[in-house]
């Protein structure tokens, strides 16, 4: 029997909100083994296997096509692979997990308010300081794409997997690209978002893989499920 795999976040607030959202749409997600288990089911849909994954892995597996549907953030799809957005369909924004991927500079950089200021500062940074402007971020793909579009070429990325907002104070980097929902962490760290520094508006989405093996049977199952969730994809 053909089957659909739906991956949902395995822990924390995202897991709760995802299960709430499905419940509001009349579909209960069961997790019979409790929070330690990684396998679940969807009430009334025996053809659907639910898997509990970390959000980052959901993005990766959707892009690869090893899972069919999943709930994860827009940012992770854009970050995981350059071809990420082409490899999936965003079937429905879920209205939670909203956050922006932004460029933030030290508040003391009063001369830098826009990306074009950053382009100017980056262009002679090397001759002034003997090194390139350093950008701390875990969003390497998104940063490269957006900086290229802004005409900023002279910088180096310093990969930062946690507490990115501390990078300018610790001297690891000059500026940061990070995700923020309220901006309060940035403000607390004396960082300021550039006026045109929002690179990506992200939120939790129900996402359909385009690279999965969509046989006619599985397509029919998928479309029935999406219809129930008031979601749709462009084919």
């Amino acid at each position, binding site marked *: 029997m053909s089957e659909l795999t739906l991956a949902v976040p395995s822990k924390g607030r995202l897991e709760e909100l995802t299960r709430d959202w499905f419940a509001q749409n009349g579909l209960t997600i069961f997790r019979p083994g409790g929070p330690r288990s990684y396998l679940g089911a969807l009430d009334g849909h025996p053809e659907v296997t639910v898997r509990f994954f970390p959000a980052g892995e959901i993005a990766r597996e959707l892009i690869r096509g090893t899972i069919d549907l999943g709930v994860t953030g827009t940012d992770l799809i854009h970050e995981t692979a*350059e071809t990420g957005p082409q490899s999936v369909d965003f079937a429905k924004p879920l209205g939670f997990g909203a956050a922006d991927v932004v460029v933030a500079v*030290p*508040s*003391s*950089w*009063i*001369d830098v308010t826009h990306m*074009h*200021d950053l*382009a*100017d*500062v980056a*262009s*002679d*940074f090397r001759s*002034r*300081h003997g090194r*390139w402007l350093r950008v701390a971020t875990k969003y390497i*793909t998104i*940063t*490269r794409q957006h*900086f*290229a*579009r*802004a*005409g900023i*070429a*002279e*910088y*180096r*990325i310093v990969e930062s997997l946690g507490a990115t907002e501390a990078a*300018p*104070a610790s*001297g690891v980097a*000059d500026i940061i690209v990070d995700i923020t929902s309220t901006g309060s962490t940035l403000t607390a*760290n*004396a960082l300021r978002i550039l006026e045109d520094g929002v690179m990506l508006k992200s939120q939790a989405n129900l996402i359909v893989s385009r690279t999965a093996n969509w046989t006619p049977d599985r397509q029919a199952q998928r479309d029935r499920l999406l219809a129930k969730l008031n979601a749709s994809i462009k084919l």
Partner: protein
Amino acid sequence: MPADPYFDLAGEEFGRRLMLTTATTGQEYCLRPEYTLPIVTDYISNGVGQPAAFAYFGPIFRQRQDGPAEFEQAGLELLAQPDGDVALDQVLTFARAALDLYAVSVPNIRLGGVGLFETLLVQLDMPDPWRPRIRHRFGHTEALERLLVRLAAAPNLERTPQPGYDALLTEITEQMVDAGISLSQGRTPDEIAARYLEQQALDAEHVPAATLALLRDYLAISGPALQALTRIEQLAHQHGLDLATPLRALRRHLNELGNSSEVSFDASFSPRLDYYTGVVFEVLGRGGQALVSGGQYDRLLERLGATAPIAASGCAIWVDRLEAECAP
């Protein structure tokens, strides 16, 4: 080979094409993505000064959307040649010979004038600090366009009175100390205050509308090389600009290329790397992809550690694309 020099020279945009791996020591390595950097680095470490010529042919590795990550590239590097223009002619001859070898009979050759643009920019009527900002965006059509739009709109912006340098310096220093940011390891309070004031002054010091119009006219020039160069001569004459030297160099290379009907000149064409100088070129295939690309890059050796600018020119040939081009 170590990946760091490539990031240092060409930045993240090139870096994302590298095939990376990490050694057990944590050091990052890449599969060789091109030949110019290793050749030039080796040349510098052996003591610069003597004219040298290198040719290469072998596999390189890059991530690309289409085609395998391993493919062959060939090319030429002419370093510290006594006459940079003669050297470029040799590069062009070499490129032509490679095209003949693959029977690419009607090549589409595109020339760009980095030196020409720099000569023009120096002579334009505008506040000096705008020149490097414009130069920096040359070759990135969208970024340059955004700057020109901003410059055109600048006279209509409202302005508030600004604090003086000392007040700014105090304010910035306080902010940096509060935030725990080093006053010396990155941008300094002095640098920020100076650029802030320069920015304010710049916003008040407009680039004349006539200059912006001239820049736009110039950048829009694109077409058969002889006509394009004639058009630039007219523009120079009309505005009293002296572009004779770079134009002469371009005409000379055009002659060397022989059949000039295949050669176009695009005034806005430039690689996005700031070590290019003089004349740049590329040969495009039927699908618009580069078969050969090259030019003069007199600032490259300095960037890689040489103590003075050294004439350099060369080109890289995309062998797999040439093979595809001549396939029936």
